[in-house]
């Protein structure tokens, strides 16, 4: 059976499409095209002089050992944030989905952090972990543990990973919870009657049935870790100490906005765009195969 909508007026469908096309053109195609143009030019800050330099900007970026270091940091950061936020959100969702007292209060509290702007969340973390003014930071130092993320690569990276993951747990939690509630009780009950324990029920029934949600969140979380953690890093560490917490997106900002190197920054944007397109393609091609949709 096929249902087709017939428009009498030939122009109407285009008219209805126009807003979406306009949004895509203005907010995606245009800036992306500009980035492409900028990435093969060398320009001063005011845009008064620009010259075509071919792929020199890409060459400069890719041969910069600091950039490769940043790629490594980004991978560690993104994998950690994704695993941590997915894992803890799933655990919390399973717990909140069970029959407990005041379940809705827990749910509300768990969803709350999502309403915070990344920079605000980062400031909260600063008040906890700052070695001079943070509650926990001071306590750690008083206990004799030298906590100072301003001068310790590992501590700084751990802190931004925690802060960025915490921010994303709420989002994942909402989706996992919805996914869990969509799993038919009858299937779980049947498994119980057959003698399957809670762990076994989770791995053989809940987890596979959740896989569309998990897959969706995996894509969203990777994109989040790549692009939306800028505010957190900016407010907490500014990419430091050294370059220990500098991710690709942070460097794009740093080079483009602070350092006025539009060519280099655009070249990095283009590289980043390629990486994310590739990642998403891989995810859809390989991970999606293992996903049960119904």
């Amino acid at each position: 059976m096929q249902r087709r909508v017939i428009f009498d007026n030939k122009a109407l469908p285009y008219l209805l499409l126009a807003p979406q096309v306009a949004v895509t053109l203005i907010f995606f195609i245009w800036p992306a095209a500009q980035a492409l143009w900028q990435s093969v030019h060398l320009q001063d800050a005011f845009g008064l002089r620009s010259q075509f330099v071919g792929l020199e900007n890409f060459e400069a970026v890719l041969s910069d050992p600091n950039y490769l270091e940043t790629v490594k940091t980004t991978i560690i950061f993104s994998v950690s944030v994704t695993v941590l936020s997915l894992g803890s959100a799933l655990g919390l969702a399973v717990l909140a989905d069970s029959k407990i007292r005041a379940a809705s209060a827990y749910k509300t509290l768990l969803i709350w952090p999502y309403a915070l702007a990344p920079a605000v969340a980062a400031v909260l973390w600063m008040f906890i972990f700052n070695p001079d003014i943070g509650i926990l930071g001071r306590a750690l130092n008083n206990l004799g543990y030298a906590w100072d993320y301003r001068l310790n690569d590992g501590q700084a990276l751990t802190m931004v990973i925690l802060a960025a993951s915490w921010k994303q747990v709420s989002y994942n939690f909402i989706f996992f919870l919805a996914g869990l509630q969509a799993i038919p009780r009858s299937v779980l009950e049947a498994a119980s009657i057959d003698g399957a324990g809670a762990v076994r029920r989770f791995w053989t029934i809940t987890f596979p049935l959740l896989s569309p949600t998990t897959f969706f969140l995996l894509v969203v979380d990777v994109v989040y870790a790549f692009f939306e953690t800028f505010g957190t890093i900016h407010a907490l560490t500014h990419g430091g100490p050294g370059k220990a917490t500098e991710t690709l997106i942070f460097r794009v900002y740093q080079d483009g906005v602070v350092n006025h190197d539009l060519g280099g920054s655009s070249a990095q944007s283009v590289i980043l765009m390629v990486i994310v397109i590739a990642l998403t393609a891989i995810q859809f091609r390989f991970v999606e195969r293992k996903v049960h949709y119904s």
Partner: protein
Amino acid sequence: MLTRRKLAVSTAAFALAAGFTGAAYAQQKTVVEFWHGLPQPLGGQLEQVVKGFNDSQDKVQVNPTFKGSYPETMQAAIAAFRAGNAPHVVQMFEVGTATMLSAGPAIKPVHQLMSETGSGLDAAAYIPAVRGYYSSKDGKMMALPFNSSTTITFYNKDAFQKAGLDPNKPPATWPEVADAARKLKAAGVTCPMTFSWPTWTQFEQVGALHDKPFASEANGFGGLNATLKINDPFFVKHLQTLIDLQKEGALRYGGRDNAADSLFPSGECAMIQASSGLRGRIVKEAKFNWGAAPLPYWPDAISSPKNSIIGGASFWVMTSPKRTADEYKAVAAFFSYLARPEVDAKWHMDTGYVPVTLQGFELAKKEGFYEKNPGAEVPAEQLTRTATTENTMGLRLGNLPEIRNIIQEEMEKAFQGQQTAQQALDNAVKRGDTVLRNFERANKT
């Protein structure tokens, strides 16, 4: 928190600006848009200065707008210029000077504005270390100096007392500083000393004080082909001293830019090398006796130290296709007002920035400001104590904010023991020179 505050400030500034525009419309005044990068309370004080000008005459209306931090203001001004909508006047931090100078047709040099409008501006009225920073190679003023600061030492007299140090005799040399820091540590002070603006205080100022170049070509004044000179043994030794003190627990690295500022007024650190502009905050927040002293020097490198260089910001005139001669005249009138000694002196006394004109300094002296506020004269005295040399005029390096960051990053790696002082500064020079070469290429006509 920062974001919220900024938002509140900019909303307030917007409301204020909107109010002004309304008033201006009624009286047909020439409107001058003025973008600045000073957060509260300084931003409010700056807007008071502007109000003083607006109230002083009835032809020109200056609308001040807060545009975020200095780098954000710079970014906004550049974006506005690209869109053909640049403000008439923009406040630019000192490290953006080279970028503005190479902006060519985007800016109108102040000396040119003043002569074209017949307003006249006496360059000699300005303190040489201030004037030099904002002048072209042939001594012409390119921007109007306004809020200038310099680095000085603030120290906690109570902590000094506790450590058996003379609270009225702050350490004058680096060996004395190291000695005092160790004594403070022995007396149980957890943070004997720190510094904010790491690159500015530990390299730019240290270079100027000892008449050592930060970069070749007279610190970049001579041309775009300058290269960094900070891997010189003198700077390596200085950084090594800082690293050693930090290892001993006698010095704390307080973070990038001005992150360390809060460590002094809170009583955490007993000594800080910071902007003289920190004074206002210390007066308000410190619950202990404190003093101000000139920066220390290395006696084995120089017998008596040179003048320090400035920080802070200046006002630049921007061009736009729509600009009329009347508007430039209005800007010139605004600038003439700002150059008045009484305006300069009041701003200095209210804020902790240094006076930028010699007469302003004299006026503050005459009013007895320094008797009432001991230590407040330290910054201006340190700035004016010697004639400027090519190493103490300031820096004229393209993309200096980026270079400052690079040096901070390499310092942080050295403080963690990931590299030696020599390696840190070699890396900083290598990376910094790449930045300078890119700037040179992008700005060649």
